[in-house]
């Protein structure tokens, strides 16, 4: 699974990092999110899906190649 945060849409609600703290990091200065790595480590898929479903701006996109 691959994950990406659209920086133009993210407004720093921080729900992704709440749902999947290992996958998303928040900028110290404005709290906007980005994926630590584009590739989601095995076992974290369901957390990423929860993050996608929780994002108020619908700014997170995943691609599942499995």
């Amino acid at each position, binding site marked *: 699974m691959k994950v990406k945060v659209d920086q133009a849409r993210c*407004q*720093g*609600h921080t*729900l992704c*990092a709440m749902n999947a703290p290992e996958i998303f990091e928040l900028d110290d*200065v*404005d*709290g906007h999110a980005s994926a630590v790595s584009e590739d989601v480590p095995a076992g974290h898929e369901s957390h990423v899906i929860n993050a996608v479903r*929780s994002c108020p*701006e619908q700014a997170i996109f995943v691609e599942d190649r499995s």
Partner: protein
Amino acid sequence: MSVEDAIGDEERKKNRYHFDRHAPDYRDRAEEITRELHAQCPVAWTDTHGGHWVASGNREVFEIARSAEYISNDHDVKGERRGYQGISIPAPQRGRGNRGGFLEMDPPEQRHYRQALNPYLSPAAINRWIPWIDEVVRACLDEKIEEGRIDFVEDLANVVPAVFTLAMMGIPIKDWRTYSEPAHAVMYTPLTSPDIMRVGQLHMAMQQELIRRLAEIRENPRPGLVNGLINAEINGENPPDEELRGVLGLLIGGGFDTTTALTAHAIEWLSENPAERDRLSRERDTLLDSATEEFLRFYAPVVGNGRTISADCELAGTQFKEGDRLWVSWAMANRDPAAFDNPDQIDLAREGNRHNSFGLGIHRCIGSNVARTVFKRMLLQVFDRMPDYVCDPEGTVHYETISVINGMRFLPATFTPGPRLGPGLAETLETLQQVCDEQRLAEPVTVQKARAKVAD
């Protein structure tokens, strides 16, 4: 308007619903009104308050609120642009001539203000303060712990957000009452109340005090949001005092009564649902985040905001005309069954909780990390020190209307008394002021990264 336009207007506004957001009826029948709007017209026209649109559907609110190219927050108090009236419907009497800070601005100005303040308010910035916030909460509870009685609004939820907001601003925290009462009263006093003029004057006096503090910090800089604003670059220049007045008012308005309202509602609900309270306390490590978001969704403190349509457009299936006024209801969008299963029930473990309580788009509440942190720190200590508290419905007073904030005036409760753990509030605030000054906690996270150290 030509006859053709008038007919076109009639057609555009064919989905009509009588909605008065200032009426007690909206407070009393909020869920019913929300269901009717969702079922009949998720974007409706109402003739109240000069006529305006009401967006209540989750999908519609999502599309409209994020369309920055077609909606404006501008409050053009001097009539220099297009005369837009900002985020209040109708524009408030007391606010006439005052712009509500960057919440009543559009980009790029609005963005410049936020860029100046973000490093004080980001998750990393707020996390530094947690031991300091815990100490304020501890002192509030110590004031009441031996008595076995507390008013959760007056004695806790009014105090902590106020003290912390002032600390971040760089204003002496011992003065919290000077700001807290007016900030609370302008929210709980209905526009039609005979008391509204007095409350307006109280609020004006608070504004005067803010102006004095602004001048003082300009003269003798001390770290905090006020200093950050004085030195902000807005379109390449430092902002004038008249704009800063509005921004300071916005920080007080946003920082004080909102978290108070959220906390009071959550504490009340948890008293009515003691098994859920015990579960949340027990499973706090896994449940506190989702429960916080669920209380935010269910009891959205800021129920909605006004906007002005800035260009003719079609959004969410509705034809809007430039200049139309629009009410975007965060609270109603949070109860849309199309977006949330069992929307009128609280589920502390709710997943996919894409609520709108901090707004959407470029105006996302800049204090959202403050609100969440302060809320959680208050709740945890209440669980630890007053685990069997019972609220008294007889003494509980909700706001008469939910014009802006869905809040509470009083929430008295009783609990099994316990021992004090430290000094009372006044002494604690003196100590915490020193801690704040010596450790320069109110600096932005770009300057000061260390977590607050508070002696046990």
